[in-house]
C-alpha cells in the first residue's frame, strides 16, 4: 500500500489545511467531470479514488481512529455500520484484565466482559443493551457505558458517565483519560473560536485580538 502522504505529495508534518489544499489540487485534476475528454480517463478515475482514500486515511490516522496505516487496535470491526466510531480503545492502551477465569465470573462481570467485547468490535448498540442487564453499576460500568454512548452520539450521557467513573475510582488513569479527552474537545473548540469572534459578547476589539493571539496557536486571521 502506498504511503498516503506520498499520494497527496505532502510531508507527514503538513498541517490539516495543507493536506486539504493538496487534496483539492489533485481531486480537481483527476475528477471524472474534469476528464470526460481525456483518453486516459480510466486512469484518471483510478487516481481520483486513490487520492480520496489517501486523504481519508490521513484524517483517520490524525483523529486517532486508525493506527499506522492499517486498522487500529480496538477500533471498529467489520460488523460496524455505525457512523460514530471515533472513540474506540485506540487511545487507551491496554485493558486491565481482572484475572478471573470465565467460570468464576459473576453475572455482572460476564455482562461487563461481553460489553467490552462488543465495544472493541464496534457493536455499540449491543454493548448498551448488555450494560442494561447489569445489576450493580460500578466505575467500570460507567466507563464502558460512556464509551458506548459516545460512539452512538449520546455525548451528554457519555460525559456524565465518564465523570461518574472518575468519581468512583479517582486513581484509575484510563477513566481519567477518557474524561479528559471529552473535556479537551470542548477546550479546543473554545480556543479555536477566538479568532472568529468567540462565543461571548465581544468586548474591545484590540483586546480580543491580543487574547486570540495568546490563546490560539493556529491563528490564521490575526495580524
Amino acid at each position, binding site marked *: 500500500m502506498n504511503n498516503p502522504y506520498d499520494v497527496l505529495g505532502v510531508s507527514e508534518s503538513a498541517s490539516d489545511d495543507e493536506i486539504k489544499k493538496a487534496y483539492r489540487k489533485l481531486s480537481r485534476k483527476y475528477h471524472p467531470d474534469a476528464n470526460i475528454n481525456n483518453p486516459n480517463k480510466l486512469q484518471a478515475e483510478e487516481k481520483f479514488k486513490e487520492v480520496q482514500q489517501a486523504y481519508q486515511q490521513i484524517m483517520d490516522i490524525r483523529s486517532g481512529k486508525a493506527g499506522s496505516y492499517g486498522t487500529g487496535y480496538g477500533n471498529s470491526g467489520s460488523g460496524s455500520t455505525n457512523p460514530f466510531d471515533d472513540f474506540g480503545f485506540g487511545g487507551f492502551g491496554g485493558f486491565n484484565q481482572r484475572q478471573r477465569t470465565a467460570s468464576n465470573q459473576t453475572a455482572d462481570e460476564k455482562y461487563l466482559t461481553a460489553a467490552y467485547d462488543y465495544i472493541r468490535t464496534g457493536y455499540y448498540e449491543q454493548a448498551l443493551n448488555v450494560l442494561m442487564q447489569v445489576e450493580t453499576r460500578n466505575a467500570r460500568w460507567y466507563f464502558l457505558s460512556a464509551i458506548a454512548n459516545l460512539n452512538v452520539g449520546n455525548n451528554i450521557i457519555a460525559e456524565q458517565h465518564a465523570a461518574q467513573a472518575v468519581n468512583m475510582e479517582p486513581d484509575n488513569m484510563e477513566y481519567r483519560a477518557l474524561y479528559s479527552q471529552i473535556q479537551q474537545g470542548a477546550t479546543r473548540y473554545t480556543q479555536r473560536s477566538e479568532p*472568529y469572534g468567540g462565543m461571548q459578547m465581544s468586548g474591545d476589539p484590540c483586546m480580543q485580538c491580543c487574547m486570540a493571539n495568546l490563546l490560539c496557536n493556529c491563528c490564521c486571521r490575526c495580524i
Partner: protein
Amino acid sequence: MFGYIIANKPELKIKEYEIYKSYYCGLCKTLGKNSGQIARLSLSYDMTFVYIVLSALYEPKESRKPEKCVLHPVKKQCVMVNSIADYVADMSVFMTYLKGRDDWKDRETMKKSIAGRLTMDITEKSYKQIKEKYHNKVSFILSRMKRLDEGEKHNSDIDYMAGAFGDIMGEVFCMNNDIWEMTVRKMGFYLGKFIYLMDAYEDIEKDIKTKNYNPFFDAYRRLGKEMFDEYAEKILIMMMADCTREFEKLPIVENVELIRNILYSGVWTKYRKIKGNGKKDE
C-alpha cells in the same frame, strides 16, 4: 428555520460577507424557480449554510452574476447558483412544511398555530413532489419527527430527543451516499443536536410557566437557575465541539473561513443576546 446557524457579521471580511449574501440570494432564486415565488418564504440562513458547505465540498460549476431582485430594486444583487441549490431548495421547502405542521399540531399559541397551518397550505404541493422525489430520505426524516412527538409524551431523555432532531439534520446534509457521507452525517447530527438544545434553552423558562414539554425541564429543576445555565452552556459547547471535529475532517478549502466564522462564532449570536438580556450585570 430556527435562525441559529448564522454568521458573526462584524467578524467577516467584506468579501466573505458578499459571498455569504450571494449564496443566500442564490438559494432564494432557486426556490422561486423550482417551487414558485411563494416558496421563497422557505428561505433561511440555516439552509444557506447547508448550501455553502455542500458547495465547498463538491465544488460544482458555479454561476455568479449580478441580478435584479424584487426586494432590492435599486442595486443588483450578486447571485450564486449551482446544481446543489436545487437539492437545498427542495430540503428547505420540505423542512418548512414540517415545521409548519409541527407548529399547527402543537397549538402553542393561536398566532403560531395559524401561521403553521398557512405554511403547510402554501408548501403542500411542493412537499408532495419532494416526498416522491426523495422517498427514502423523506421516510427517514418523518420517522424521526414521529420519535420527537412520541418522545415528548414519554419524557424521553435529552440525548434521545436531541439525537432525533440531529438525525434529521444529518439526513438533510447527506446529499450523496459517498465517501464523505459518514462525516457529513455526523457533522449534521451534532449541529442538529445543537439547534434543538439551543431552542430548548431559549424556551425553558417560558415552557415551565406554560407547562409545555422541554427536554431541559428535569435538569433545570434539579440544578437551579445558575448551575443550570452553566450545565446548558457546557452541553452546547460539547455539541459544537463534536460538530466542528467532524467538519474539520472534510477537505473543504473554498469559503472555509466563512464556514468557520459560522461554526465557531456565528452560532452563538442568539445565545449572546439571550445572556445579554438575562444578566443584569456582567
